[in-house]
């Protein structure tokens, strides 16, 4: 017996949980009945797509894929700490319990359906029958238990272990049933811990593969269960690797025979490589090459909304940044359109908060938001004068990647009397100082989020791991917790928007931009489905 007021977690059950459906369900009823209808509905759209494509598509061929990274230290899902590697590479080598659709809704992957108990604590997944790993071993619910135990083992030091911290019990009553119990409700659990790619904490690991290969070798050429399998003989750290079609994938053989992943560290080289025809596709189009590629008739650019945000934060443990007026002076002195033009060639979306455009169910474009940080130099100057900012020399730490942004900001902030000292350093030094809170100002943000929670709780909750700038507001804590515990999508959207308004009004960050997700490929590359910051390649084929 469920009414609109009670929290009913079973709406997260599925073979399909689209954000929109969820919203409608929550509005229409208490939703138990509706959700139970959803259980047992038609198969996943990605798979249907693939089967439909088989009729028209050319089977076979090799996709040469330029990937904009210098090296990939590991492909062990539990050890990958780069969102791009997880969303774009791991997602092709490993399937997850669930996966995303184009709107970041959740659809089946290895689990054909799942049910969530009404109290939101127990998730019961039903796996597809006859699943196999790339080494031919059967994949059962027990493999997820092994994966869980391996990931949370403190000696293994997985950066993904925190995603599984609420799990109190994990059981496999039979080969195709997996029951996970958590100590508290956890709205983003499916997206951040169970999804293909980003939810890599539970990407199933073959115990036999680990026993035979050891963790290090597994990290180089993991045995997965996704549509493509790595050819170990081709793996070269810092060079790339080849993936072959996996005949035993549950969705059937992918359309391509092979994907050659070629790592290209230098942005201009990546653009040239595509133009010269040395690669067929690039993972992310460097914005510096956008216009050049857009002018090329043979190249298709596909743009999806970003699931990220970037902003400037000020360390509240260091005066005067504990003063909201000082922070707001900085926020209002920043002309975000100018930052966008100078640093992103006008391709980014200016941001009014942490809610990224890809999350259509909660995102509101800047023109629909009452933005307390709107660019206003007069007000900024008044606030700066009152807060005594004139002549201060705050240090702004960043890496070479942020250089265009930080230099633009330095020039803009000189308008309110700040003489910003740019301190550009290597990534590890930057991360160390950022983590330790050793800075006055820093460019910070969240990338490749599977759910807005990824870019919210960690940053605005007083105990959030990324909150190294001493932001502590009980109301923000309450909202950050409440959105995690809400199962009602509409209510959750309202909570997130309320939190965004709160942190924008307190200028915890001077919000700057969302980076668009642009991929590019030759027109003969067909069947690509744009899913924000994911690259599922099983439906891709070559029309040559």
């Amino acid at each position: 017996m469920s009414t609109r007021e009670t929290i009913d977690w079973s709406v997260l059950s599925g073979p399909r949980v689209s954000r929109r459906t969820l919203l409608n369900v929550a509005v229409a009823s208490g939703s138990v009945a509706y959700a139970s209808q959803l259980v047992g509905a038609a198969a996943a759209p990605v798979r249907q797509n693939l089967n439909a494509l088989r009729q028209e598509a050319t089977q076979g061929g090799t996709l040469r894929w330029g990937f904009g990274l210098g090296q990939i230290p590991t492909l062990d899902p539990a050890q990958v700490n780069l969102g791009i590697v997880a969303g774009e590479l791991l997602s092709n080598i490993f399937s997850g319990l669930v996966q995303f659709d184009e709107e970041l809704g959740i659809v089946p992957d290895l689990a054909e359906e799942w049910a969530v108990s009404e109290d939101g604590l127990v998730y019961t997944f039903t796996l597809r029958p006859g699943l196999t790993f790339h080494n031919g071993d059967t994949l059962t619910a027990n493999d997820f238990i092994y994966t869980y135990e391996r990931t949370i083992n403190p000696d293994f030091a997985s950066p993904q272990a925190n995603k599984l911290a609420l799990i109190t019990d994990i059981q496999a009553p039979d080969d195709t049933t997996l029951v996970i119990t958590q100590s508290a409700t956890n709205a983003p659990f499916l997206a951040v811990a169970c999804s293909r790619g980003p939810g890599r904490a539970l990407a199933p690991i073959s115990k036999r593969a680990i026993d035979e290969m050891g963790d290090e070798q597994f990290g180089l050429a993991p045995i997965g269960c996704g549509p493509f399998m790595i050819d170990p003989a081709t793996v070269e750290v810092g060079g790339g690797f080849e993936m072959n079609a996996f005949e035993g994938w549950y969705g059937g053989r992918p359309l391509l025979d092979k994907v050659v992943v070629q790592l290209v560290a230098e942005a201009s080289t990546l653009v040239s490589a595509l133009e010269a025809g040395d690669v067929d596709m690039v993972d992310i189009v460097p914005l510096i090459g956008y216009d050049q590629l857009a002018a090329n008739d043979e190249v298709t650019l596909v743009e999806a909304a970003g699931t990220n945000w970037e902003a400037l934060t000020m360390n509240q443990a260091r005066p005067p940044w504990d003063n909201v007026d000082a922070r707001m002076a900085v926020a209002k002195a920043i002309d975000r359109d100018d930052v966008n033009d100078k640093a992103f060639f006008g391709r980014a979306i200016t941001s009014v908060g942490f809610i990224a455009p890809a999350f259509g169910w909660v995102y509101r474009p800047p023109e629909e938001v009452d933005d307390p940080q709107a660019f206003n130099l007069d007000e900024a100057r008044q606030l700066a004068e009152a807060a005594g900012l004139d002549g201060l020399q705050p240090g702004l730490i960043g890496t070479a990647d942020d250089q265009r942004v930080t230099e633009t900001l330095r020039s803009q902030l000189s308008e309110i009397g700040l003489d910003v000292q740019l301190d550009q350093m290597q990534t590890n030094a930057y991360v160390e100082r950022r983590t330790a809170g050793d800075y006055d100002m820093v460019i910070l943000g969240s990338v490749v989020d599977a759910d807005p929670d990824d870019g919210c709780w960690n940053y605005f909750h007083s105990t959030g791991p990324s909150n190294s700038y001493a932001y502590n507001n009980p109301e923000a804590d309450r909202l950050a917790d409440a959105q995690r515990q809400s199962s009602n999508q509409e209510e959750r959207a309202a909570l997130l928007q309320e939190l965004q308004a709160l942190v924008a009004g307190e200028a915890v960050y001077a919000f700057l931009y969302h980076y668009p997700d642009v991929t590019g490929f030759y027109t003969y590359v067909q069947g690509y489905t744009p899913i924000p910051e994911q690259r599922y390649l099983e439906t891709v084929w070559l029309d040559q």
Partner: protein
Amino acid sequence: MTQYIIRRLIHSVIIVWGCATLVFFLLRAIPGDPIIQLLGPEYTPQAADALRAKLGLDEHVVVQYFRWMGNLLRGDLGSSITGAESVRSAILTGLPRTMSIAALAFLIATAIAVPAGIMAALRRNSVADFAVSTVAFIGVSMPSFWFGIILILIFSVELNWLPSLGYASISDDGLWEWFKHLILPSLAIGAGYAAILMRFVRAGLLEALSSDYIRTARSKGLTERRVVIAHGLRNSLIPVITVAGIQVALLLSGAVVIETVFSIRGIGRLLVGAIFDKDYPMVQGAILVVAVIFVFANLIVDIAYTLIDPRIKYE
């Protein structure tokens, strides 16, 4: 001579050891903790401690140093910080690439610089001399990465003649593919080297041609060709070879940049990646190899002097 070489070899070992030691401690002195980078910003202190212990980074730096030295003496360079790759195999894969680029760059540079330098010297102050010197001036001023990008735009993007990135091995892809992948990167670093070399050939030859033995040779009735090549050029080679030794360093450091532009994972790019990742064992291993190459290249240069100029003898 043998004694000299033995003495130089002992010196070389000491230099390489000093270099390796310096790098070991410098790496640990510069800011940035590899553990935090490996675990990402949301790491837990327990995970950091466990990983630090696993990598032996919890021990005193002197203990770490002697362990590394001990392993090094046994020929064990260790594994990359993620443990996924042995430093030795990474270097053995990268070295042929860097050496291929450097060797071809050297050949290209020599092939351009020596004839151009001779011509400039023989037709001193002519239009040809002026033209060659101007081109050389541009060559010296042009950063190799910029020239590399220009070469890619012309020969890969516009003309589609040569690949814009990557490396092909002779054994897997054949000689022609190997060569095709090397032309542009080698040209990019070879150009700057050719310009410097050309200036030295020109200056050396001018000096030699004005000396007494050349006048003697001419008065003996030797052909001008023989005078220039056998007497003039040979005697002008000493400074050229000295520069060549020093230029090995330029070619190697050029490879660091050019390998990134052309996405070739030789020693240079290996080193850059390792530095960014604070991959201690990999940086140490790569620097060690670069130091060995540099020291031995200069040893070979010193020995080459005696072959070219019989007046030079080592005791």
